Structure formats: C-alpha cells, structure tokens
C-alpha cells in the first residue's frame, strides 16, 4: 500500500485529472482509482480509420488511459501517407494500415491492446459496433460518416443494452435517457456517442455527437459542401482551365479509347495516360475536331496552361492536401473529448469545433441544433401500410419511395432480423419471412420504428445507408389496444 503511493505511476499526469475532485466537471464525475481502473479495464473504444487522424487517435487514446482499442480501415499504406501517418515506414508500403498501426502502438505503449480490422465498415455486422462505449471517427469520406452515424443512432432506438461490465459507464456518460419497463424498473439503453474529426490542409473540425442529445451527422450534412463537378458540355466544348482538360481526358476520352476498361485512379499507367496522351494532345486535337474550325481553336486551346502530372492526380483522385500538424490538433481535440465523455473529468465540447490556421489562428465552437425532420435521428420517415402487406412487398416499396430509393434492403425490427440480404446463411434463415405480412412479423403493433439498410444512389454513386422508418398500420389501433388490455 505504502509502496504503491510512493512508487511513481505510469498514469502520473492523468491521475491528477482522474483522482481528484474538480469544480468544472460533469455532474456524474466520480473521481478515484476505481474510475481510472475502470477506464483501463472496461472502456472499449472503436477508432474508424487508421490514416492521418487514425494514427494520431490510436496514439492519443493509448496515452489517455484507454487500454482496449479496436481500429477499422480498409486501406493499405501508400508512400504519400508517410508525411503524416507517423506509425508507418517506407517498408510498410502495401500493408494494411489497421494492422501496422495497431502493432506499432502496442509495441510502444505497454499494456494497451488494439484489435485491427482490415475491412470496410459495412462488412461488419451492425452488432459489432455495440461493444464500444464510444466510436471515434477519423475519416475523409462523407458516406462513411453517414453510415456510422446511422448505425450509432440505430442502437439508441432499438434498445440494445449496455454490454460492458461496469455499471458506472452509464452514469459517467450522463447521456442515458432513462426509460421504464412495466414494473417501473429503469431500462438502460445504449447511447453510442461519437466523436468525429476531419481535416483539410490547415483547417479542420472536431465534433461530439450524442444520439438523442446533440444533432447527428445527418442533421448538419450541409456543412460538407458537395464536390465541384464540371458540366460535361464545358469539358467537351469550352474548356478553359487545366482541370477542364484533365477531366475531359478522365471522364470522356478514357471510355472512348479504352472501351470496357474501367479507369483505375490507383494505377499509375492509367494516370499517366490521362496526363500525357490526353491532357495535351487530345485536348488540343479531338475536342475541337468535333466542333468548329480546328485551326483557330487548336491555337486557342494551346493557350490553356498549367496541366501537370501532380495536378492531374489531384483533379482525378480529388486529393485533399494533408499535413501532420492539423491532424495532430484535431485528433488531440477528439481524444480529449473521448476521455471527458468516458470519465466526466471535465465539461464537454458542445458540440462543434472548427480550426483554421491559414491566417493567424481561429478556433470557434458552435452549438448546432437538431434538425427535427432528420432522416436519421428524427422521428423517421412515416410510412402507412395495410396490415396485409408482406415483407417482400414492403421491400419492393422501399425501392420506389421517393424519399428513400433504397434497393436491396435488409430489414430489422428492434433486435430481430426480419430479412437479411447477406451473409447467405442469414439470408436463408430469414427468407421464409418474405411471404409473411409485416404486421405479424412486427408483433401486431399499430405503430413502430424499424430500420432498413440497403443501397441508395446519389449523384450516380451507390452508397450504403441505414434509414429509420416509422410504420403505421392502417386500422390496427383498435385491435391491438384491445389485445394489450387483455394481455395486461
């Protein structure tokens, strides 16, 4: 006992924050050794992405009292990662990011366990995500953020229970909406907070999303402006900039010349073809040949300057410039919020931080509000159905519904899979449900929330999505009310 207090602890610095009571802390903060040990033992954190932010996040979390981490990333290491993804070396190029990142952090910080997952986020069963108390996102894709956002919000509604041993998490999180069962015992629902970071050059953001309390990612999707796209007629007829010439080569000319071969932005041969064969020559020749007098236009087109290999890559791959310092700043902010959410050791960010280091230094915190009509965290898209509608018919309807346009839907009601498109085992198990009325499958309730996952196409791009629907069965009220009364 005496020895343990005299001997210096590894958590020398963190102990100051976790063991002593404070004034500006969360109301649920219970400082003490127990809290520190529980953080180490029971708090499981999932990091999504092992890139610029992910590498930083894993390091930061491992040195912020968390010992059980998992990381998902589908990418392999590239040379251009090395200026910021500090866990990777030249000899790692080609290896899965998640695996190398996990290994490097475990080698350096003893006692930390990191489970890597080299796969897409959609490859994981939704249940996979429920084992974590907080999900931290270090992504560069809007689609991936949307998907995880929907998954995290699905837990809250579906009422999956906290799986971790320590009861204190729910208290510490202070975000658990208390619901009561028929005997007036509180039901603790899992609330899956997310901490999301993003960077571009000298700019970045960090935000906290607590399902039920804060706006979700989808509520403020407008914060991410759509990618600039050039009209095809500009590319073909009136190119003016180097980027126009590159996109012409990439989007129009590639298919004309290589019929049937898909353009692969990661294949340097393809990239070089776009650059050398086209950006100059074809831009000059073909483009104008199909239109007005060649000689004049050709000379004019020659005036378009600035096509370089670097720009070609930048335009075609939509490369976002990235540097170590911004990633470090944003990841650190995300980690600090994760620690505060898990321990209550201070107040939390409410709820969106922007960083801009371009001109001086600007940090701004904005408290966004929920969009009450949000497709993900709002009451759900309302669908009115006849009690006779079968599951198969319902799935077909989703494809036609103008707000959803959801194909290949899998359907889940509370914790039950009604129909799963994959894996084959589950598909087979649930196939027989297709011919049954949905009303019966859902336990004959007049109104309830269900979740559907599937693909939707937006701007000609297929993306996975999860949607919350509020189903109301026509003319079912009276019957079920009666049923329930009898049951009670």
């Amino acid at each position, binding site marked *: 006992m005496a020895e343990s207090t005299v*001997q*210096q*602890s*590894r*958590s*020398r*610095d*963190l*102990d*100051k*924050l976790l063991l*002593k009571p*404070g*004034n*500006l802390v969360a109301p649920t903060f219970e400082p003490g050794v127990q809290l520190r040990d529980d953080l180490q033992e029971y708090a499981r954190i999932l990091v999504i992405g092992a890139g610029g932010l992910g590498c930083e996040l894993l*390091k930061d979390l491992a*040195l912020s009292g968390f010992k059980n981490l998992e990381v998902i990333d589908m990418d392999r290491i590239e040379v*251009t990662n090395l*200026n*910021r993804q*500090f866990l990777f070396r030249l000899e790692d190029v080609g290896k899965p990011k998640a695996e190398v990142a996990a290994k490097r952090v475990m*080698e*350096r910080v*003893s006692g930390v366990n990191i489970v890597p997952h080299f796969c897409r986020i959609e490859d994981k069963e939704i249940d996979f995500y429920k084992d974590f108390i907080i999900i931290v996102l270090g992504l560069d894709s809007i689609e991936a953020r949307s998907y995880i956002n929907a998954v995290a919000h699905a837990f809250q509604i579906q009422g999956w229970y906290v799986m971790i041993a320590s009861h204190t998490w729910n208290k510490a999180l202070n975000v658990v909406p208390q619901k009561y069962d028929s005997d007036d015992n509180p039901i603790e629902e899992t609330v899956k907070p997310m901490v999301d970071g993003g960077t571009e050059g*000298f700019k970045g953001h*960090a935000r906290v999303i607590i399902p039920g309390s804060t706006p979700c990612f989808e509520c403020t999707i407008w914060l991410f402006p759509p990618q600039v796209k050039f009209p095809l007629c500009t590319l073909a007829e*009136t*190119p*003016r900039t180097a980027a126009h010439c590159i996109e012409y080569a990439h989007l129009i000319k590639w298919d004309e010349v290589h019929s049937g071969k898909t353009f692969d932005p990661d294949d340097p041969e393809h990239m070089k073809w776009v650059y050398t064969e086209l950006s100059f020559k074809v831009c000059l020749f073909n483009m104008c040949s199909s239109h007005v007098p060649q000689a*004049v*236009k050709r000379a*004019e087109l020659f005036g*378009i300057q600035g096509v370089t290999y*670097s720009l070609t890559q*930048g335009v075609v791959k939509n*490369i976002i*410039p*990235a*540097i*170590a*310092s911004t990633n*470090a700043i944003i*990841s*650190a*902010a995300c*980690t*600090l*919020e994760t*620690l505060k959410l898990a321990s209550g050791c*201070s*107040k*939390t960010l409410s709820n969106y*931080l922007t960083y*801009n*280091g371009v*001109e*001086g*230094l600007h*940090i701004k*915190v904005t408290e966004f509000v929920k969009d009450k009509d949000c497709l993900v965290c709002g009451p759900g898209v309302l669908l009115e159905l006849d009690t006779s509608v079968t599951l198969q018919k319902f799935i077909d309807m989703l494809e036609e519904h103008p707000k959803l346009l959801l194909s290949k839907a899998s359907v889940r009601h509370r914790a039950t899979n009604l129909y799963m498109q994959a894996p084959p085992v589950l598909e087979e198990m649930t196939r027989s449900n297709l011919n049954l009325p949905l009303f019966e499958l859902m336990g004959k309730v007049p109104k309830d929330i269900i979740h559907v996952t599937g693909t939707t196409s937006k701007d000609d791009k297929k993306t996975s999505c999860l949607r919350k629907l509020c189903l109301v069965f026509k003319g079912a009220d009276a019957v079920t009310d009666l049923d329930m009364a009898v049951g009670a």
Partner: protein
Amino acid sequence: MAEPKTKYDRQLRIWGEQGQTALEKASICLLNCGPTGSETLKNLVLGGVGSITVIDGSKVELGDLGNNFMVDESCVGQSKAKCVCTFLQELNDAVKAKFIEEYPEALVDSNPSFFSQFTLVVATQLAEDSMVKLDKICREANVLLIFARSYGLTGFVRNSVKEHAVIESKPDHFLDDLRLNNPWPELKRFAESIDLKVADPVAHKHTPYVVILVKMAEEWAKAHGGALPSTRDEKKEFKELLKAGMVAIDEDNYREAIEASFKVFAPRGISSDLLQIIHDSCSEVDSNSSDFWVMVAALKEFIVNEGGGEAPLEGSIPDMTSSTELYVNLQKIYLAKAEADFLVIQQRVKSILKRIGRDPDSISKTMIKSFCKNARKLKVCRYRLIEDEFSNPAVPEVQKYLTDEEYSVAMGFYILLRAVDRFSANYNSFPGQFEGEMDEDISRLKTAVVGLLNDLGCNGSTVTEDLINEMCRFGASELHAVAAFIGGIASQEVIKLITKQFVPMVGTFIFNGIDQKSQLLAL
C-alpha cells in the same frame, strides 16, 4: 514526379517546392522533450525539416511512459533527450537528429551564444524567468522563437520574432483582381472589340462576364458624367440593365455578371491594410532595410505614379462561363498588364537598391514577381518582447478580456499560467503537484493571482474560484492529448514562420481544454 518527393506530395500541394526547400534548410532546436516538445518535433520531422537538436537534462521516469509516445519501457533511467531523439529519427531518415543532455535553463544562463546557430527554437515547459532571458537572446541573434506549454487542461503557444513579413499569405478567400471598376486601356479596347448584341445565341451566352461588365460600366459612366453606380438605386438599375441584356434565361454568363456586379461598384485603390504597410516607417528604406521593405518602397512609388492609386495587377482571372477563345485572350490581356506592372516595379526596386548603396540585382526576379502578384495580400506580423509584455502590460486589453464573456476564461488561464510560475518560485513546487496540500495551495495560488492582477493594473478584478481550483487540480500535469494539441499548434506556427507562407498568429494562444473555447489574446 521526382520519386523521393512522393512522400511529401500531400504537403507540397500546400506550400510547394519553395516552402519545402525552406523547411529542409531549417535547423530546429527543442528545449525540453516532454510530450509537448516531442509532439511538436514529431510533426516537423515527418514534414522533413533539415535538422533537429533536442535539449533536455532529465532522465526518463515511469510517469513519462504514460504521456510521451517518444519513449518506451527500455528508456527508463536513460537520458530523455537521447531516447526521444532516437525515436524521432525513426520517423524520417532525411532529417539530421541530434541531442544534448543538458537542462535548457542552465544553457540559457551559461551559453547564450549557443542558440544563434539555429533557424528556430521551440521552447517548451519553460518557467517565466527563463522565457524572458531566452527571448532576449533569440531576439538579439535574430533566431525565430516559439514558446509552448501544456498545463493540465490548459496551455499556451506564443511566437516571438521582431518582425515577420509575408508575401505569400495565401488567404482562403480573397477578392480577385479584375479592375472592373478601373479598367486599363487594353482591357477596354478588348471589350470594345466584342459585340454584346451578337446575333449568334451560342456566342452570346459565351461572352465572359468580365467583358459584359466592362462594357456596361463604360456605357453607364458615359451617361453619368464618368461616375459608376454608387447609390442603392443606381446599383439596382445597373443590375436591371444587365438582366435586360440577356436573350435567353439559361445564360450563365449574364447570371455571373449580375452576381459579380459589386466588383464594378467597389471603391478603387488599395485596401486599408496595404495602406498601413506602405505608410509604415520601415518603408523609408536605408542600407539596413530588408528586401521586403525595399520592395514595399518600390510598391509605394508605383502606387503613387504608374499605378494611379492601384497596386500592380495580379494577372490571373477566375474561371467563368466563356468560349475557350475569349477566355484565353482575356487571360493574355491580364497577364500582359501584370508583366508590365512587374517591369516597372523591378526597375524601381533596382534604383532604390542603388540609392541605398546595395547591388541593384540583389533581389531576384522571381522574388519581385511573387511580390507583385501578392502585393494586395502582404502581411507584417510583429511581436513584443516577452519582458515588455510582462513589465508593460496592455491594461485596456487585459481589462476588456477579463470582462468579456467570450474571453474571460482564456484570460483567467493566462493569468493562472503566470501565477503558477510565481507560486513555484516561492514554494519550489507547483500548486497541487503533491498530495495533501490542496487547500493550502489553493489559497496560496489565490494570493499569487491577486498580486499578478495588481501588476497588470487590474486591481479589483478577479479570476473565478472555480478556475483557481481547477488549476490546482491540474497540478502541473502534462496530459498527452493536451500536449499533442499544443504541440500541433506550435509545429504549424513553425511551418508558417519558416516557409514564410500563410500568416502566423499574433498574440498568445490560450488553450481551454474544458469546453474547447480557446482564444488568441492580443496582449
């Protein structure tokens, strides 16, 4: 496509070859390699700075393993500088990494000339008295200096350089330089050669808005005694005229013209920021003046003479709906004017250099060209000596920050961060650093705060009890996440100072880890 540069591709897209070369030439010295210092250098080593020198006199303890990624179990008991240096070197073999096992405070006292060999010094976790001494040493030796400190859930970053002039400030949003309110003869002539009422609908909708606006403004001026639209009604009328010029509703060029019509209404001449720079006393140049100020002196002459009140033209135009032919021709006209303006400035630079007794060719053509292109975006950052900030406080600012709801917590932390150093000078430890003395430490810290507020000329002002208690709870801890944040900011400032691109922060950045409402205090 040079292969060795591939790993820097994502940052070259930000600061270019020139910025990268500046980084590769830089030698950086780090004082104290706790997590704040280690994280700062980590970001710089990854980016490829020339060399680093890590200075720290301490040995690695068990507690360091819990907050510093640049040490591991095998390091316990060894020189911290050595261990951190070894792990940093692993990140990038192009960087020369050295270490010196010595306490920075001792080095500041015993060997001040040591620091003059570096491009930049990053001083982390230094107490006030050493900060003041080091600041003077670096200022004297013309070495860039950045202070950074993490302390519990707070911390600060502060640059210190006599003057940092930026040519390539690369702002996110900056109005293009089209001169629609003040076109030069070639642009006017080009516009005149184009018929807005062209019968061919394809040609009509591919007339660039620059041409439309120049012609319409010219017409307006003729009818209004040479004046451009200035009142609200006139502006509205002008836009109506533009709308009336459309022959079909899908004419993007006319839509762009209406949106850009404010560029016609904008006042002529240079911005107040640029006016301030050309009237800076440094623009009266002599043989000791920097290249920057020599060019500013030339710019000043240009504005008064050839420029007719305007800065040299930037020479580039944004993309706009247009036929390729007209767009490229327009580009050429802007480029030609920019080139002509550059030649005038270059001539003026040469004669100024001659006048002040320097080689007329000592400023390169590339440099002058870049200066001309960025003339409207020049920035000059100046930093007080730390000693001056401490002994000669900006009382009105301090009072304003203390009472402003947005700033009061940050200002409170600024005061507390200084108060803990006074505390430590008196009691040989930081408040809350050791077990069991919290209450006593809180009241002692309170006393230190009151004393400091007095010295800042703010008698009667207070820092909240909550904040003082929190500061005691922090107990001088260096949390990894806070250190990574502070180190991230410090490294980004290093990059801005060394590449001379973008604009470094001016003032003291105070980190607020409680609700993340950090602030930059101009003191």
